[in-house]
Protein backbone atom coordinates (compact mmCIF):
# COMPACT_ATOMS: atom_id res chain seq x y z
CA UNK A 1 0.00 0.00 0.00
CA UNK A 2 1.32 3.41 -0.87
CA UNK A 3 1.09 6.53 1.32
CA UNK A 4 -2.07 7.75 -0.38
CA UNK A 5 -3.87 4.43 0.14
CA UNK A 6 -2.78 4.24 3.80
CA UNK A 7 -4.06 7.77 4.50
CA UNK A 8 -7.35 7.08 2.68
CA UNK A 9 -7.79 3.89 4.72
CA UNK A 10 -7.09 5.81 7.95
CA UNK A 11 -9.63 8.50 6.92
CA UNK A 12 -12.19 5.79 6.22
CA UNK A 13 -11.60 4.15 9.61
CA UNK A 14 -11.92 7.54 11.37
CA UNK A 15 -15.23 8.12 9.61
CA UNK A 16 -16.56 4.70 10.67
CA UNK A 17 -15.34 5.25 14.24
CA UNK A 18 -17.02 8.66 14.37
CA UNK A 19 -20.26 7.11 13.12
CA UNK A 20 -20.03 4.32 15.72
CA UNK A 21 -19.37 6.81 18.56
CA UNK A 22 -22.29 8.98 17.46
CA UNK A 23 -24.58 5.93 17.22
CA UNK A 24 -23.60 4.86 20.75
CA UNK A 25 -24.61 8.29 22.04
CA UNK A 26 -27.85 8.72 20.11
CA UNK A 27 -31.16 6.89 20.22
CA UNK A 28 -31.38 4.07 17.69
CA UNK A 29 -34.49 5.62 16.20
CA UNK A 30 -32.30 8.54 15.08
CA UNK A 31 -29.09 6.83 14.02
CA UNK A 32 -28.25 3.19 13.29
CA UNK A 33 -24.74 1.99 14.07
CA UNK A 34 -22.41 0.83 11.26
CA UNK A 35 -22.83 -2.80 12.37
CA UNK A 36 -26.64 -2.53 12.33
CA UNK A 37 -26.54 -0.91 8.89
CA UNK A 38 -24.19 -3.55 7.47
CA UNK A 39 -26.23 -6.40 9.02
CA UNK A 40 -29.38 -4.94 7.58
CA UNK A 41 -27.73 -4.55 4.17
CA UNK A 42 -26.61 -8.18 4.29
CA UNK A 43 -30.19 -9.27 4.97
CA UNK A 44 -31.52 -7.06 2.19
CA UNK A 45 -29.02 -8.57 -0.24
CA UNK A 46 -30.97 -11.85 0.04
CA UNK A 47 -34.24 -10.32 -1.15
CA UNK A 48 -35.38 -9.61 -4.74
CA UNK A 49 -36.84 -6.32 -3.44
CA UNK A 50 -33.28 -4.99 -3.00
CA UNK A 51 -32.16 -5.88 -6.53
CA UNK A 52 -35.35 -4.50 -8.16
CA UNK A 53 -34.82 -1.10 -6.55
CA UNK A 54 -31.02 -1.15 -6.83
CA UNK A 55 -31.03 -1.91 -10.56
CA UNK A 56 -33.71 0.63 -11.46
CA UNK A 57 -31.71 3.35 -9.66
CA UNK A 58 -28.49 2.29 -11.39
CA UNK A 59 -30.31 2.50 -14.74
CA UNK A 60 -31.67 5.98 -13.97
CA UNK A 61 -28.34 7.30 -12.70
CA UNK A 62 -26.47 5.89 -15.72
CA UNK A 63 -28.92 7.32 -18.25
CA UNK A 64 -29.04 10.68 -16.47
CA UNK A 65 -25.25 10.95 -16.35
CA UNK A 66 -24.91 9.87 -19.99
CA UNK A 67 -27.46 12.41 -21.24
CA UNK A 68 -26.26 15.18 -18.89
CA UNK A 69 -22.57 14.50 -19.47
CA UNK A 70 -22.88 14.17 -23.23
CA UNK A 71 -25.00 17.28 -23.74
CA UNK A 72 -22.79 19.27 -21.33
CA UNK A 73 -19.68 18.16 -23.23
CA UNK A 74 -21.09 18.87 -26.71
CA UNK A 75 -22.51 22.29 -25.85
CA UNK A 76 -19.45 23.10 -23.71
CA UNK A 77 -17.11 22.26 -26.61
CA UNK A 78 -19.09 24.41 -29.04
CA UNK A 79 -19.35 27.28 -26.55
CA UNK A 80 -15.65 26.99 -25.62
CA UNK A 81 -14.66 27.37 -29.26
CA UNK A 82 -17.28 29.96 -30.20
CA UNK A 83 -17.73 32.87 -27.77
CA UNK A 84 -21.02 33.93 -29.41
CA UNK A 85 -22.60 30.55 -28.65
CA UNK A 86 -21.28 30.83 -25.09
CA UNK A 87 -23.00 34.21 -24.62
CA UNK A 88 -26.21 32.79 -26.11
CA UNK A 89 -26.16 29.80 -23.75
CA UNK A 90 -25.13 31.73 -20.63
CA UNK A 91 -28.68 32.72 -19.53
CA UNK A 92 -29.86 29.09 -19.82
CA UNK A 93 -26.81 27.85 -17.90
CA UNK A 94 -27.42 30.46 -15.20
CA UNK A 95 -31.13 29.58 -15.02
CA UNK A 96 -30.52 25.85 -14.55
CA UNK A 97 -27.65 26.27 -12.09
CA UNK A 98 -29.53 28.81 -9.99
CA UNK A 99 -32.87 26.98 -9.80
CA UNK A 100 -33.33 24.93 -6.59
CA UNK A 101 -33.32 21.16 -7.32
CA UNK A 102 -36.66 20.69 -5.62
CA UNK A 103 -38.33 23.08 -8.09
CA UNK A 104 -36.87 21.06 -10.97
CA UNK A 105 -38.36 17.91 -9.33
CA UNK A 106 -41.77 19.56 -9.13
CA UNK A 107 -41.61 20.72 -12.76
CA UNK A 108 -40.29 17.35 -13.95
CA UNK A 109 -43.13 15.56 -12.13
CA UNK A 110 -45.59 17.95 -13.73
CA UNK A 111 -44.19 17.38 -17.22
CA UNK A 112 -43.31 13.67 -17.12
CA UNK A 113 -45.37 12.27 -14.25
CA UNK A 114 -43.91 9.78 -11.77
CA UNK A 115 -41.18 7.33 -12.76
CA UNK A 116 -37.98 6.91 -14.71
CA UNK A 117 -38.35 9.67 -17.33
CA UNK A 118 -38.75 12.25 -14.60
CA UNK A 119 -35.70 11.00 -12.64
CA UNK A 120 -33.47 10.73 -15.73
CA UNK A 121 -34.55 14.20 -16.89
CA UNK A 122 -33.72 15.66 -13.49
CA UNK A 123 -30.27 14.10 -13.30
CA UNK A 124 -29.48 15.18 -16.87
CA UNK A 125 -30.69 18.76 -16.36
CA UNK A 126 -28.81 19.23 -13.10
CA UNK A 127 -25.55 17.57 -14.16
CA UNK A 128 -25.25 18.99 -17.70
CA UNK A 129 -24.26 22.52 -16.57
CA UNK A 130 -21.44 21.12 -14.39
CA UNK A 131 -19.89 19.36 -17.38
CA UNK A 132 -20.70 22.35 -19.60
CA UNK A 133 -18.89 24.86 -17.35
CA UNK A 134 -15.83 22.61 -16.90
CA UNK A 135 -15.64 21.94 -20.63
CA UNK A 136 -15.89 25.65 -21.52
CA UNK A 137 -13.26 26.60 -18.94
CA UNK A 138 -11.01 23.73 -20.09
CA UNK A 139 -11.25 24.72 -23.75
CA UNK A 140 -10.64 28.38 -22.98
CA UNK A 141 -7.47 27.34 -21.15
CA UNK A 142 -6.11 25.25 -24.05
CA UNK A 143 -2.60 26.36 -24.92
CA UNK A 144 -2.88 28.97 -27.70
CA UNK A 145 0.48 27.85 -29.06
CA UNK A 146 -0.90 24.37 -29.71
CA UNK A 147 -3.94 25.89 -31.41
CA UNK A 148 -1.50 27.68 -33.75
CA UNK A 149 0.17 24.35 -34.53
CA UNK A 150 -3.25 22.88 -35.38
CA UNK A 151 -3.89 25.86 -37.70
CA UNK A 152 -0.49 25.57 -39.40
CA UNK A 153 -0.99 21.87 -40.11
CA UNK A 154 -4.62 22.47 -41.11
CA UNK A 155 -6.26 20.05 -38.69
CA UNK A 156 -9.95 19.69 -39.59
CA UNK A 157 -12.56 20.49 -36.92
CA UNK A 158 -13.06 16.94 -35.64
CA UNK A 159 -9.31 16.24 -35.63
CA UNK A 160 -8.90 19.32 -33.40
CA UNK A 161 -11.68 18.13 -31.09
CA UNK A 162 -10.22 14.63 -30.83
CA UNK A 163 -6.50 15.37 -30.73
CA UNK A 164 -6.29 18.84 -29.21
CA UNK A 165 -9.31 19.91 -27.18
CA UNK A 166 -10.42 16.57 -25.70
CA UNK A 167 -7.00 15.54 -24.32
CA UNK A 168 -6.37 19.12 -23.15
CA UNK A 169 -9.58 19.20 -21.12
CA UNK A 170 -9.38 15.58 -19.91
CA UNK A 171 -8.27 16.76 -16.43
CA UNK A 172 -11.09 19.21 -15.66
CA UNK A 173 -13.57 16.97 -17.48
CA UNK A 174 -12.75 13.92 -15.35
CA UNK A 175 -13.13 16.03 -12.21
CA UNK A 176 -16.53 17.15 -13.52
CA UNK A 177 -17.57 13.56 -14.27
CA UNK A 178 -16.68 12.43 -10.75
CA UNK A 179 -18.70 15.39 -9.41
CA UNK A 180 -21.77 14.61 -11.53
CA UNK A 181 -21.63 10.95 -10.53
CA UNK A 182 -21.98 11.86 -6.85
CA UNK A 183 -24.53 14.54 -7.72
CA UNK A 184 -26.44 12.15 -10.01
CA UNK A 185 -26.82 9.54 -7.27
CA UNK A 186 -28.06 12.16 -4.80
CA UNK A 187 -30.54 13.60 -7.29
CA UNK A 188 -31.79 10.14 -8.28
CA UNK A 189 -32.55 9.27 -4.65
CA UNK A 190 -34.28 12.61 -4.10
CA UNK A 191 -36.31 12.34 -7.33
CA UNK A 192 -37.34 8.77 -6.46
CA UNK A 193 -38.23 9.75 -2.92
CA UNK A 194 -40.48 12.54 -4.14
CA UNK A 195 -41.91 11.12 -7.35
CA UNK A 196 -41.36 7.41 -8.08
CA UNK A 197 -42.76 4.11 -6.96
CA UNK A 198 -39.58 2.11 -7.30
CA UNK A 199 -35.84 2.70 -6.84
CA UNK A 200 -33.59 3.41 -3.86
CA UNK A 201 -35.22 6.76 -3.08
CA UNK A 202 -38.65 5.13 -3.02
CA UNK A 203 -37.31 2.37 -0.71
CA UNK A 204 -35.77 5.04 1.56
CA UNK A 205 -39.20 6.70 1.79
CA UNK A 206 -40.80 3.41 2.84
CA UNK A 207 -38.15 2.68 5.52
CA UNK A 208 -38.55 6.22 6.87
CA UNK A 209 -42.36 5.81 7.10
CA UNK A 210 -41.93 2.46 8.87
CA UNK A 211 -39.12 3.82 11.09
CA UNK A 212 -36.83 1.01 9.87
CA UNK A 213 -33.67 3.01 10.65
CA UNK A 214 -31.06 0.22 10.04
CA UNK A 215 -32.62 -0.40 6.59
CA UNK A 216 -32.55 3.34 5.90
CA UNK A 217 -28.81 3.38 6.59
CA UNK A 218 -28.38 0.21 4.55
CA UNK A 219 -29.86 2.07 1.56
CA UNK A 220 -27.51 4.98 2.23
CA UNK A 221 -24.59 2.53 2.11
CA UNK A 222 -26.01 1.15 -1.14
CA UNK A 223 -26.04 4.64 -2.66
CA UNK A 224 -22.43 5.17 -1.61
CA UNK A 225 -21.58 1.80 -3.14
CA UNK A 226 -23.14 2.88 -6.47
CA UNK A 227 -21.08 6.08 -6.51
CA UNK A 228 -17.95 4.06 -5.66
CA UNK A 229 -18.62 1.65 -8.54
CA UNK A 230 -19.02 4.52 -11.00
CA UNK A 231 -16.01 6.41 -9.72
CA UNK A 232 -13.45 3.70 -9.07
CA UNK A 233 -14.44 0.94 -11.49
CA UNK A 234 -15.58 3.02 -14.45
CA UNK A 235 -14.28 6.59 -14.44
CA UNK A 236 -10.89 6.26 -12.73
CA UNK A 237 -9.54 3.77 -15.34
CA UNK A 238 -10.85 6.04 -18.13
CA UNK A 239 -9.23 9.05 -16.43
CA UNK A 240 -5.95 7.14 -15.99
CA UNK A 241 -6.01 6.22 -19.68
CA UNK A 242 -6.48 9.81 -20.85
CA UNK A 243 -3.96 11.22 -18.39
CA UNK A 244 -1.30 8.53 -18.95
CA UNK A 245 1.04 11.07 -20.60
CA UNK A 246 1.38 12.90 -17.28
CA UNK A 247 2.80 9.89 -15.45
Amino acid at each position, binding site marked *: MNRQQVLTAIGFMLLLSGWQILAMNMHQILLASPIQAITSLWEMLHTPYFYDNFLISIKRISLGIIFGGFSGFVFGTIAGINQNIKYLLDPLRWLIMSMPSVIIVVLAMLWFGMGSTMAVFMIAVITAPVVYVNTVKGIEAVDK*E*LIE*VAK*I*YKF*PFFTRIKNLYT*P*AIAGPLSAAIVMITCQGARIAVMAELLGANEGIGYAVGITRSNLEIPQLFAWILTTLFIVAIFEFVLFRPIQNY*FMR*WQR
Partner: protein
Amino acid sequence: MNKIITFDSVGKKYGQKTVLSNISFSIYEQDIIGLLGPSGIGKTTILKLISGLEKPTSGKIFVSSKKISYVFQEPRLFPWKTAIENILLPLMVSGHSKKEAMNIAKHYLDSMGLSEFMDYYPAKLSGGMRQRVSLARALSLCPDILLLDEPFSALDSKRKGSLVELLAKSIEEYPMVVLYVSHFPEEAKKIANKIHTLSSKDKLVESNL
Protein backbone atom coordinates in the same frame (compact mmCIF):
# COMPACT_ATOMS: atom_id res chain seq x y z
CA MET B 1 12.40 31.97 -61.28
CA ASN B 2 8.84 31.88 -59.94
CA LYS B 3 7.81 34.10 -57.09
CA ILE B 4 6.68 32.01 -54.14
CA ILE B 5 5.98 34.76 -51.60
CA THR B 6 5.31 38.44 -52.26
CA PHE B 7 4.77 41.19 -49.69
CA ASP B 8 3.29 44.31 -51.28
CA SER B 9 3.37 47.35 -48.96
CA VAL B 10 2.38 45.20 -46.01
CA GLY B 11 1.61 46.76 -42.65
CA LYS B 12 0.63 45.12 -39.38
CA LYS B 13 -0.71 46.73 -36.23
CA TYR B 14 -1.60 45.15 -32.90
CA GLY B 15 -4.11 47.58 -31.46
CA GLN B 16 -2.45 50.99 -31.71
CA LYS B 17 1.07 49.54 -31.95
CA THR B 18 2.55 49.40 -35.44
CA VAL B 19 4.79 46.37 -35.85
CA LEU B 20 5.36 46.48 -39.62
CA SER B 21 4.80 49.34 -42.03
CA ASN B 22 4.93 49.38 -45.81
CA ILE B 23 7.15 46.31 -46.16
CA SER B 24 7.65 44.93 -49.68
CA PHE B 25 9.80 42.01 -50.83
CA SER B 26 9.62 38.84 -52.89
CA ILE B 27 10.92 35.35 -52.28
CA TYR B 28 11.62 33.04 -55.21
CA GLU B 29 11.88 29.28 -55.76
CA GLN B 30 14.82 27.70 -53.93
CA ASP B 31 15.47 30.84 -51.91
CA ILE B 32 16.81 30.11 -48.48
CA ILE B 33 16.44 33.35 -46.62
CA GLY B 34 18.14 34.22 -43.37
CA LEU B 35 15.87 36.82 -41.80
CA LEU B 36 17.89 38.94 -39.40
CA GLY B 37 17.14 41.88 -37.18
CA PRO B 38 17.06 42.97 -33.57
CA SER B 39 14.57 41.53 -31.04
CA GLY B 40 10.99 42.74 -31.30
CA ILE B 41 11.47 44.28 -34.75
CA GLY B 42 8.75 42.13 -36.40
CA LYS B 43 10.58 39.08 -37.79
CA THR B 44 8.16 36.63 -36.17
CA THR B 45 5.24 38.73 -37.42
CA ILE B 46 6.50 38.26 -41.00
CA LEU B 47 6.50 34.48 -40.52
CA LYS B 48 3.03 34.56 -38.96
CA LEU B 49 1.74 36.62 -41.89
CA ILE B 50 3.19 34.16 -44.40
CA SER B 51 1.73 31.19 -42.54
CA GLY B 52 -1.70 32.80 -42.30
CA LEU B 53 -1.67 32.86 -38.48
CA GLU B 54 -1.99 36.65 -38.73
CA LYS B 55 -3.67 38.86 -41.31
CA PRO B 56 -2.05 42.09 -42.56
CA THR B 57 -3.61 45.39 -41.49
CA SER B 58 -2.68 46.95 -44.83
CA GLY B 59 -1.11 45.85 -48.12
CA LYS B 60 -1.25 42.48 -49.81
CA ILE B 61 0.49 39.16 -49.30
CA PHE B 62 0.72 36.52 -52.00
CA VAL B 63 1.79 32.99 -51.05
CA SER B 64 1.77 30.50 -53.93
CA SER B 65 1.67 27.32 -51.82
CA LYS B 66 -0.42 26.13 -48.94
CA LYS B 67 2.14 23.44 -48.04
CA ILE B 68 3.78 25.29 -45.18
CA SER B 69 5.63 23.94 -42.17
CA TYR B 70 6.59 26.07 -39.20
CA VAL B 71 9.16 25.39 -36.50
CA PHE B 72 8.63 27.72 -33.56
CA GLN B 73 11.10 28.86 -30.92
CA GLU B 74 9.55 26.29 -28.59
CA PRO B 75 8.94 22.72 -29.78
CA ARG B 76 5.13 23.01 -29.39
CA LEU B 77 4.57 19.26 -29.31
CA PHE B 78 1.25 17.84 -28.16
CA PRO B 79 2.16 16.63 -24.65
CA TRP B 80 -0.39 13.78 -24.74
CA LYS B 81 1.10 12.33 -27.93
CA THR B 82 4.35 10.39 -28.18
CA ALA B 83 7.21 11.62 -30.36
CA ILE B 84 6.09 9.52 -33.32
CA GLU B 85 2.40 10.39 -32.86
CA ASN B 86 3.30 14.09 -32.99
CA ILE B 87 4.76 13.49 -36.45
CA LEU B 88 2.08 11.03 -37.59
CA LEU B 89 -0.87 13.32 -36.97
CA PRO B 90 -0.04 16.13 -39.47
CA LEU B 91 1.05 13.49 -42.00
CA MET B 92 -2.31 11.70 -41.76
CA VAL B 93 -4.19 15.00 -41.87
CA SER B 94 -2.29 15.83 -45.08
CA GLY B 95 -3.65 12.67 -46.70
CA HIS B 96 -1.11 9.92 -46.04
CA SER B 97 -2.37 6.47 -45.06
CA LYS B 98 -1.39 5.31 -41.58
CA LYS B 99 1.18 2.90 -43.00
CA GLU B 100 2.78 5.53 -45.25
CA ALA B 101 2.75 8.08 -42.44
CA MET B 102 4.39 5.59 -40.09
CA ASN B 103 7.21 4.90 -42.57
CA ILE B 104 7.81 8.61 -43.17
CA ALA B 105 7.69 9.45 -39.46
CA LYS B 106 10.16 6.66 -38.63
CA HIS B 107 12.50 7.83 -41.38
CA TYR B 108 12.59 11.41 -40.08
CA LEU B 109 12.89 10.37 -36.44
CA ASP B 110 15.76 8.13 -37.47
CA SER B 111 17.44 10.97 -39.37
CA MET B 112 17.20 13.08 -36.19
CA GLY B 113 18.76 10.26 -34.18
CA LEU B 114 15.56 9.67 -32.22
CA SER B 115 14.42 6.24 -33.35
CA GLU B 116 14.95 4.84 -29.84
CA PHE B 117 12.70 7.51 -28.39
CA MET B 118 9.75 7.34 -30.77
CA ASP B 119 7.35 6.08 -28.08
CA TYR B 120 8.41 8.65 -25.47
CA TYR B 121 6.05 11.43 -24.44
CA PRO B 122 7.57 14.94 -24.84
CA ALA B 123 7.84 15.37 -21.06
CA LYS B 124 10.35 12.50 -21.03
CA LEU B 125 12.54 14.07 -23.73
CA SER B 126 15.21 16.74 -23.29
CA GLY B 127 14.73 20.24 -24.77
CA GLY B 128 17.01 19.42 -27.70
CA MET B 129 15.22 16.15 -28.42
CA ARG B 130 11.83 17.87 -28.36
CA GLN B 131 13.07 20.48 -30.83
CA ARG B 132 14.39 17.70 -33.09
CA VAL B 133 10.94 16.06 -33.02
CA SER B 134 9.44 19.43 -33.93
CA LEU B 135 11.90 19.74 -36.82
CA ALA B 136 11.15 16.17 -37.94
CA ARG B 137 7.42 16.99 -37.87
CA ALA B 138 8.00 20.04 -40.08
CA LEU B 139 10.33 18.31 -42.55
CA SER B 140 8.32 15.09 -42.80
CA LEU B 141 5.56 16.94 -44.63
CA CYS B 142 8.00 17.87 -47.44
CA PRO B 143 6.67 21.43 -47.39
CA ASP B 144 7.07 23.94 -50.21
CA ILE B 145 7.75 26.62 -47.59
CA LEU B 146 9.57 26.02 -44.32
CA LEU B 147 9.38 28.76 -41.69
CA LEU B 148 11.92 28.57 -38.87
CA ASP B 149 11.56 31.04 -36.02
CA GLU B 150 14.81 30.90 -34.04
CA PRO B 151 14.24 27.18 -33.66
CA PHE B 152 17.47 26.49 -31.82
CA SER B 153 17.69 29.58 -29.64
CA ALA B 154 17.10 27.67 -26.41
CA LEU B 155 19.85 25.13 -27.10
CA ASP B 156 23.54 25.19 -26.19
CA SER B 157 26.01 26.00 -28.98
CA LYS B 158 27.13 22.38 -29.50
CA ARG B 159 23.57 21.07 -29.97
CA LYS B 160 22.67 24.12 -32.02
CA GLY B 161 25.59 23.47 -34.39
CA SER B 162 24.64 19.84 -34.99
CA LEU B 163 20.98 20.71 -35.58
CA VAL B 164 21.87 23.49 -38.02
CA GLU B 165 23.96 20.96 -39.97
CA LEU B 166 21.11 18.45 -39.88
CA LEU B 167 18.72 21.09 -41.15
CA ALA B 168 21.09 22.16 -43.95
CA LYS B 169 21.39 18.52 -45.05
CA SER B 170 17.60 18.06 -45.06
CA ILE B 171 17.10 21.20 -47.16
CA GLU B 172 19.72 19.96 -49.60
CA GLU B 173 17.92 16.62 -49.96
CA TYR B 174 14.50 18.17 -50.44
CA PRO B 175 14.63 21.68 -51.97
CA MET B 176 12.11 24.13 -50.53
CA VAL B 177 11.78 27.81 -49.78
CA VAL B 178 13.11 28.47 -46.30
CA LEU B 179 12.82 31.50 -44.06
CA TYR B 180 15.16 31.21 -41.12
CA VAL B 181 14.78 33.84 -38.43
CA SER B 182 17.85 34.34 -36.29
CA HIS B 183 19.70 36.90 -34.22
CA PHE B 184 23.02 35.49 -35.37
CA PRO B 185 24.25 36.25 -38.92
CA GLU B 186 26.87 33.47 -38.80
CA GLU B 187 24.27 30.86 -37.90
CA ALA B 188 21.91 32.03 -40.66
CA LYS B 189 24.71 32.07 -43.24
CA LYS B 190 25.34 28.35 -42.68
CA ILE B 191 21.94 27.63 -44.19
CA ALA B 192 20.87 30.67 -46.20
CA ASN B 193 21.68 31.73 -49.74
CA LYS B 194 20.20 35.22 -49.18
CA ILE B 195 19.98 37.49 -46.17
CA HIS B 196 17.07 39.82 -45.47
CA THR B 197 17.67 42.28 -42.67
CA LEU B 198 14.73 43.97 -41.01
CA SER B 199 16.42 47.05 -39.60
CA SER B 200 13.25 48.91 -38.63
CA LYS B 201 9.49 48.33 -38.88
CA ASP B 202 9.46 49.84 -42.40
CA LYS B 203 12.86 48.87 -43.79
CA LEU B 204 13.89 45.44 -45.08
CA VAL B 205 17.28 45.19 -46.79
CA GLU B 206 17.91 42.26 -49.16
CA SER B 207 21.37 40.92 -49.90
CA ASN B 208 22.79 37.86 -51.68
CA LEU B 209 25.49 35.75 -50.11
